[in-house]
């Protein structure tokens, strides 16, 4: 699975993107976020308040119950502030 991080999520996690092998029990966005939190203090800090984390799967906004699989591109980022 390809993971992308933007803005302060990228800064806290320390990288902009990575390829990961997720465990079999990770089936949806909520499961993915829970697993990521366990991967280190940067992840835990970035994902401490999920109210300010948005998720896109394959470049479309999704909700926590959206399924994720090994071929997906999953992006995590704060609420957008362009324009």
């Amino acid at each position, binding site marked *: 699975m390809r993971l992308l991080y933007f803005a302060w999520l990228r800064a806290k996690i320390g990288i902009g993107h990575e390829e990961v092998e997720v465990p079999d029990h990770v089936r949806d966005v909520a499961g993915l976020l829970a697993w990521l939190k366990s991967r280190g203090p940067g992840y835990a800090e970035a994902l401490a308040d999920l109210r300010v984390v948005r998720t896109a799967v394959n470049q479309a*906004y999704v909700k926590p119950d959206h399924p994720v699989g090994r071929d997906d591109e999953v992006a995590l980022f704060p609420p*957008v*502030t362009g324009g």
Partner: protein
Amino acid sequence: MTIRVEAADFDPGAELAALTRGKPGIGGLVSFVGLVRDLAGETPIAALTLEHYPGMTERQLGELEAEANRRWPLDATLIIHRVGRLEPGDRIVLVAVASAHRDAAFDACRFLIDWLKTRAPFWKMEETSDGPRWVVARAEDDAAAAHWLEHTG
């Protein structure tokens, strides 16, 4: 129906002229230019850096343009959004909409910038005298975008 995401500045006059050229059915052209302000609240801002999600940005903006064209009879639309480091007074974004009728052009232009601000994956980092900080999304922007869910102009 043009979308561009780029670091370079744009020329609003040239863009607007190109948008209407050769289309004599256009009666009204409404544009919005967003500029970097020198203050965020009361904090002086030295510069902004705009980051985005390449690919998803263009996809989201394309969906917004398609939605605007479903809602209003439009002759031309244009969205240009800059990325990278910008200073106060610099242009950030141009949204322009041309239509036979001004009401459609006004409504569609406002719809596009309202939704761009809440859906297009851009993020601003401000340089202040206290160091850099990420801009926090505004509740007013969510409200402005939500307005269009109930309202078709």
